[in-house]
């Protein structure tokens, strides 16, 4: 019972199932804010796929659109254009009821500020029970599941305490418990460790990993913490509202038989064939305005426009 919540079996209404597709799919996602007459394009054609059970870190400069993406995935906001599908549901086609169900059962959300994740007048245990009662989980099950959740996250001793009686790290781990209470398929965390010191931050991140491992939750976590991003298998970089790069890490055995972590950095090529070159690359070669491309048999070469002419000339 404890992990059935993560499955996408409970299809509801219009959520079209695509059994073999990626668990999270964003295709050409656009979100335009218009406030006081100024239009801000927060997401400009973002593509992202995440497989079930993956733990992905999202990184990017401030204002690059990370929070916007998470808000859309959490079902709070709707994109201006594009396709977004989570656990087989088309988020653009959800009815109000389905959206509610989606928020209750399919996603859990974790804010940067612990206080924004917890109701101040409920104890940790009651806070964890709250989403369950909202989702009409039978009463008997709530207590056991809440206790189990707090246990897994290492804050069982805080069960009876109110938020102001806990440290920041404890608060954030309880908040994680709240987000995971209904065993959602996806956990979305927006800079969950941003306000914490490095030790607490490690504890919270360890808890996230544990949830990922124990409950099989797919995790998408926004972070500025290099320490964190270096410890996940996949880090997606966002620039100007688009996925620009990706780092994949895997353990490999070198020629001496030692296990080591190998990180490979990829640039993301979208479906329109667009590619963002890493800034340090373009800076180093002073690539500007126009570049020259050469198609070789197994790769594409990129040259500064003038230099390429000299070498050829």
């Amino acid at each position, binding site marked *: 019972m404890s992990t059935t919540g993560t499955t996408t079996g409970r299809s509801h209404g219009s959520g079209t199932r695509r059994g073999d597709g990626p668990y999270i799919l964003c295709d050409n996602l656009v979100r335009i804010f218009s406030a*006081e007459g100024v239009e801000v394009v927060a997401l400009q054609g973002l593509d992202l796929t995440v497989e079930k059970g993956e733990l992905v870190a999202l990184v990017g400069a401030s204002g690059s659109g990370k929070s916007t993406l998470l808000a859309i995935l959490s079902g709070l906001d709707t994109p201006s254009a594009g396709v977004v599908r989570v656990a087989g549901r088309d988020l653009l086609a959800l009815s109000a009821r389905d959206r509610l169900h989606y928020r209750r*059962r399919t996603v859990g959300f974790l804010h940067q500020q612990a206080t924004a994740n917890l*109701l101040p*007048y409920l104890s940790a245990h009651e806070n964890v029970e709250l989403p369950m*009662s909202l989702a009409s989980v039978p009463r008997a099950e709530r207590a056991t599941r809440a206790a189990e959740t707090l246990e897994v996250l290492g804050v069982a001793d805080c069960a009876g305490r109110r938020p102001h009686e806990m440290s920041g790290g404890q608060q954030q781990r309880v908040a994680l418990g*709240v987000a995971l209470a209904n065993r959602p398929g996806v956990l979305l965390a927006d800079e969950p460790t941003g306000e914490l010191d490095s030790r607490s931050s490690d504890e919270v991140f360890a808890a996230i990993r544990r949830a990922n491992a124990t409950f099989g939750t797919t995790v998408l976590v926004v972070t500025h913490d290099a320490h964190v991003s270096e410890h996940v298998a996949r880090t997606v970089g966002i620039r100007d509202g688009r996925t620009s790069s990706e780092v994949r890490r895997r353990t490999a055995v070198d020629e001496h038989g030692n296990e080591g972590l190998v990180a490979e950095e990829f640039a993301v090529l979208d479906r329109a064939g667009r590619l963002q070159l890493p800034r340090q690359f373009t800076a180093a070669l002073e690539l500007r305005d126009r570049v020259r491309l050469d198609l070789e048999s197994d790769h594409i070469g990129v040259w500064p426009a003038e230099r390429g002419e000299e070498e050829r000339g």
Partner: protein
Amino acid sequence: MTGRHASTRPRPFLLFRRGFAAGRGTAALLAVVAALTCGFVVAVPQLAAGAGDRALGDLVRAAPPGARDLGLRLVPQSTQGVALPSTDPGAEAAAPFDVVSRAVAGAARATGARLDAGPDLAAQSEPMTVVPRTRPLRVSAAEALVRLDDAYDARVRWVEGAAPGAATTRRTLDTISGQAHTVLVVPVALRDRTARTWGVRVGDVLELRQGSQATRRTTPTAVVLAGTFEPTDADDPGWAAEPRLLGIAKIPAPEGGSIDQAALVAPLSSYAALADGLWRIPAGGPIDASPALTHTWRWTLHPDRLTRADVAPLRALLVRLGSDPAVWSGIARRPAVVTGLPDLLDRYQRDLAVTDVLVSFVTAGVTALAVLVLALTALFGAERRRDQVRLLRLRGASTARVLGLVTGWTAGACVPAALLAALATGLLVAGPVPGAARLEVLAVTLLPGLVVLVATWLTVRRLGEVPDATRSLARAARRLVLELLVVALAVFAVTTVRSRGAVIVAGHADALAAVAPVLVALAAGVLAVRLLPGPLGLLARAAERRRGLGAFLGLGRAARTGAEAAVPVVALVVGTALVALTATVGSSLGAQRDLAARLAVGADARVDAGRIDAPDIAALAARPGVRSAVPAYVETAGGIEVDGRESLVTVLALDPARYADLLRDTPLAFAPPATHAGGGLPVVLSGGPAAAALGLVVRGTTLPAHRIATVPALARVVSGRESVVALVPLDALVDALPTVQPNTVYLAADRDAQAALAADAADDRTRLGALVTGVTTVDGVVGQVADGALASFVGATYLAGSLVGGVLTLLALLLLLAATRPARSQLLIRLRTLGLAPGSGRRLAWSEVMPVVVVGVLAGAAAGAAAPLVVGPALDLAAVTGAATRLALEPHPLAVALAAAAVLILGASALLVDAAATRRGDLAQHLRGGDTA
């Protein structure tokens, strides 16, 4: 809750309970305001009903005897025309008392009218000249009437002799024409004091001959004094039926001097004997009531027992007695109904209606203001829970659930407090709770929750919404529609009230009239919020050039006052308008009461007499505190004749210049017009026909006169009605009609002198002059009116209304400060890091909040000043001012200015409180507030 398991805690209410407890400060404020308001709006109409019940008693008590009782009067017509003397015995006259009393009792039973006591039966003769037969009188001229009445025996103590019995002896008298007339000598009684004054003793026989004011030609008769009495209680209202039983009335004698008048009393068993002497019915003639006697029946109403419920049956009874022939079937002569009750009941119902309207202004105003303040408090509380709402939403709470929770947190405080307070007040205070009060309680109970519901619903909808330019356009349009709606409603209410004012005055309390001032204030508030940014922006630009940074930033922020300040500003406007209106009505009541009293009195004080002589006038003028005394001849039933048509005026003959001087610096002041030559007496009229040449009717004589001016300020109120006054110089009138003598003295007297005069008159008015009949003072009249149940109730309600309005306005101001505080303190923290001097913070608050307060107060004062114009046509203050004619409510600039100043002071003190609270606030909390705001 009977928990079967330990874990079966009422989970669904956990969130509600804990959330409620977390916001208990706000909840307590909501509960207190809601409870106080409901208590107020329920208690006021209940108390008004009680005051209304007492007011009928007041009216009855203040009315002259006769006007407040139900009286019947029968003067049988004689077939003969005159009484004829004779020495032959005649037929016995029969008193008509029983049959009439039975008819009235039957009518009273049929209509359900309650007549508390009676009937008191009496038959009395006209005053007749007393001719002593035993010894001469000690006074030059005396007249006596004989009253047949059995009620007096119980109210007297016999000094000499005994109660008169039946007539047994006969005596033959000579008439003026020398004919013999044999009569039975009727034993009578007289007050001992009167007997001593006149010099008559027990056993004396007095002949009674037709008196100086006789209207019936009666034959002489004789009485014998059987006893003298003194009243056991001279203040017993029973004596009021014939005051001459106790005192001697002085009437001017035709040939100068005065005639004493007193009443002799005999038992009703002497009816036949007295009737026979005065008007003999020839033997064999029809047995009937005596034409020489006036028969009266009197039923009295007990002022303390009368309530509103008596009005309708009494009216029905009066209608029946006056117009239903069935009542009088079988009665030969139908008595006339003599009562002032219809007028009194009319006046009573008008007074009640006016009081209801007056009171409804206060309750409607307080309700509106309270709802605004409650909504404000609730919104403020909801605003602080915005993060929680967002979180609940994120965790998958349904819209209904979120709305239920947030609304429940407000309603959970408001609803029980309001209902409990209303219920408790309804039970503790006696009196019915009218429908309007129930509606007001409902508004206080439900509207705050409703406002929060709508506000939360909008927030919840907007949580994930694209903040889109088109959407904000729609919102702006919605706001505009709302504002236009309020303004349109106000315009509708005002035009309706103005056009239907007369109907409302006539006694239809009107819901629209009650809310009209509130609607005007709301419209003013909406306009103020809408127009506020313009002038404040200009001010900010001016401040930018001239003064410090704090003033500029504050004014700039004030100019951009957002939606969060809209509700407090509207509440401020409504509060100021309410305080201004109550202050206006309050001061109008005082001023108009004074004016009404002056119109009735004619000066600070007035001494009325049969005739008043020069030494008495000099003595009055010499009293301490009396600035001046002007003798006058006043005839309230005088007339002016134009083209042969006479109209009734009050003739006021005095020295115009001295009278003008007497009235200077009072509301009655007038400039005496210059006399110019013309035919006859120079007359100044207060109104009436416009002709220049006219006849002035004084004492039945028409004197040639000409109008020299029209001075409307001279109009006076005479026995409750406005009367046209004809002012004529006294010396000129005396020249034309030498019998005219002053009968009134007008006095300019300070309050102490008025009080002393009234006290002396109550003590023994003859000390002021032999023929003095009464003293009236402005303070006395004002005091009598102000002490009336309705008047004092309205006064208290308006005082309470302005206090409640002031408190609620203060709350609105504090909430305005609280609503703008987070943004202000955030700005302040930012400015501090930029090196702003600490003092500038305070200036920022003042320059941000005070302009908003000033504009709100100005708008409220304007609405409050305009409100009298709006409701004036629907309002007749006569009920609570004692005025005879309709007095409209007028704007009172001073009262409005004072009210505005008071609210401004409240605003300043709210700022001081806020500053103190901020200063005392924990610095860390302050900084964190800056982080998250």
